[in-house]
């Protein structure tokens, strides 16, 4: 039972990491209607920015994370302005492909700047563990869960109580009607990309903290976060978190128990388990658990 609980908490932390990435997907999807494949590139860039701020510029860790988030936001805004702005009104397929191209460019600039080797982020959590009753929990996991919770609350507050948030919701609902009300869609796009870049940097830091280290392949995690996003529905922040947690817990439970029950599935089946869960759920609910159904007019 302790083992089960331990796996669940580890899964919760993993799910929170996914949730942070998925929040970035959701904010861009809501604004522009496009899945942003470049998110993984922002994740890895954010992690390296935090590394750079903390280790090269000797800033305190918390400040480094904020610097990384600001840097991520800035890169997001620049990328939107230079590339994505030109694609407004183009077919969705084309825009997705642009973000895939961006992913490869962003991801590969990292080893060119910082080199291909793994680097130690130097976070204060390290590999410490805390005992909760009989269960050992990594301090990093607790922080990840807390950070994800804060980010999610900030999202809800932003969307519900601020003028920008309302404008974003209006743009997501109907771009033309929003324009007619005097909302600048351009500003909303830029803000969305900025938020996505910032939250991706935070996700990158939680990824790289502890024993994982900063490495050029960190961006791949965004590809595993896809199932979490699909599961929750592309346009639902709450769904993002729930989807992330479902995927995270399933993954750690698979890793923990697969050898005992289904050894024939092969080594590392937990890394593809998210996709299996995703396909199963999509068969029942083609727009995810909380996604908005597409209305089709003839």
């Amino acid at each position, binding site marked *: 039972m302790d083992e089960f609980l331990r796996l669940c908490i580890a899964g919760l932390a993993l799910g929170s990491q996914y949730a942070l990435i998925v929040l970035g997907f959701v904010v861009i999807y809501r604004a522009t209607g*496009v*899945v942003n494949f470049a998110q993984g590139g922002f994740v890895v860039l954010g992690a390296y920015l935090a590394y750079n701020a903390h280790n090269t510029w000797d800033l305190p860790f918390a400040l480094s994370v904020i610097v990384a988030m600001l840097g991520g936001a800035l890169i997001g805004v620049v990328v939107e302005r230079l*590339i994505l702005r*030109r*694609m407004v009104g*183009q077919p*969705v*397929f*084309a825009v*997705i*492909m*642009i973000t*895939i*191209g*961006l*992913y*490869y*460019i962003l*991801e*590969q*600039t990292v*080893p*060119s700047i910082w*080199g*291909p080797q793994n680097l130690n982020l130097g976070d204060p959590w390290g590999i410490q563990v805390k005992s909760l009753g009989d269960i050992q929990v990594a301090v990093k996991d607790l922080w990840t869960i807390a950070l994800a919770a804060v980010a999610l609350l900030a999202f809800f507050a932003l969307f519900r109580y601020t003028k920008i948030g309302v404008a974003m919701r209006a743009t997501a609902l109907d771009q033309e009607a929003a324009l007619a009300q005097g909302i600048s869609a351009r500003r909303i796009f830029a803000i969305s990309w900025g938020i996505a870049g910032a939250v991706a940097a935070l996700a990158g830091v939680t990824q790289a903290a502890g024993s994982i280290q900063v490495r050029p392949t960190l961006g791949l995690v965004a*590809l595993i976060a*896809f*199932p979490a*996003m*699909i599961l929750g529905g*592309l346009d639902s922040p709450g769904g993002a978190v729930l989807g992330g947690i479902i995927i995270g817990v399933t993954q750690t439970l698979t890793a923990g128990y697969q050898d005992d029950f289904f050894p024939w*599935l*092969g*080594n*590392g*089946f937990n*890394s*593809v388990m998210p*996709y*299996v869960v*995703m*396909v199963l759920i*999509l*068969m029942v609910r*083609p*727009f*995810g658990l909380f996604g908005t159904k*597409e209305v*089709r007019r*003839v």
Partner: protein
Amino acid sequence: MANPSPHLVTTYERDLRLFPSLASKIGVALLVLVWLVLPMNLTDYQLLVLVFAGIAAIGGIGLNLLTGYTGQVSLGHAFFLGVGAYTAAYVGDQHDLPVFVWLPAAALLAGLIGAVIGPFALRLRGQYLGIVTLGLVFLGLHVFENWNSVTGGNTGTSVSGASVDVGPLDFGALEIGGQAFTKEQSYFWLVWGLVGVVALLTKNVVRSRAGRAMQAVRDRDLAAEVVGVSLARTKVGAFAASSALAGLAGALFASFQEAVNPENFTLLVSIQYIAVVIVGGVGTIFGSVLGALLVGPVQRIVETASRSQDLPFVSGDAGGSEGVIAVASLNRMIFGALIIVFLIFEPRGLAAIWLRAKAYFRTWPFSY
């Protein structure tokens, strides 16, 4: 009355013709001639690059059928290439069956799996489908890495035993009339011959009823359904045909490379095929061939150029320290940049450039 101009199309029959004018027939004849004599005039290395480009052209035509003509976004092309390649290894190498068995088997099995995936496209739309096919790549990799008895696991498996004897002709090392040819020369004829066959077949598909159904589904699936196009048959058919071509390309790739491992079928490969389709031109058959001829060789050229120290800022191999950027990194960035640049500046690809050039010369000296 005689038709006043070959470019004035007045009947559907004329519109559908495979070779609309004498010039296009001459063009095809010239291409066949080039195909016949090119291997005698190029080095083996250049031919090797072209063989890989030809394989990419076959796979690219397959993906274009699905994405360009039917409008179904698929990131799973690498998986079907893998199915074809491992089928070739299993049937051709491990069971020593002739090329008449393993090549069709690779295409058939990949096509069959494609037909099984097809129904997902009925239920899911657009981006959801794209991400499910992305999952297919990862699930496929997991199977390739773990089904040791067939795929050889992480280290991969040899395909060198798969024979390529077509009757008296052994495409592993052709010998005609006492003259021996190298493997690269032989494969050039085999692969580009197949490119021609595949291009002709798919061209015939897309200009027939099935092809019009595909394009109707792409443009507006609901409207297509209303006018009597069966969505199920069209989408599943497109998936099956596209996957079968990917399987064919994968089998040729495996046989030419003589070994395959899971690294050959990662997501990057899917993206390369998407780059082929986008750079060449979405929804054109000959565009895919042009795209393959640009995207495939670029990678090799970058590799060769950096090996011979022509590019001082590139380090020799991944992990090298003397240059700023590793070759593998540079190649990935080039793919990304190719996709972005073409989508922003030339969304209809090389095919559009070619058509514009043709129109310019046809109407010269009048630009309109």
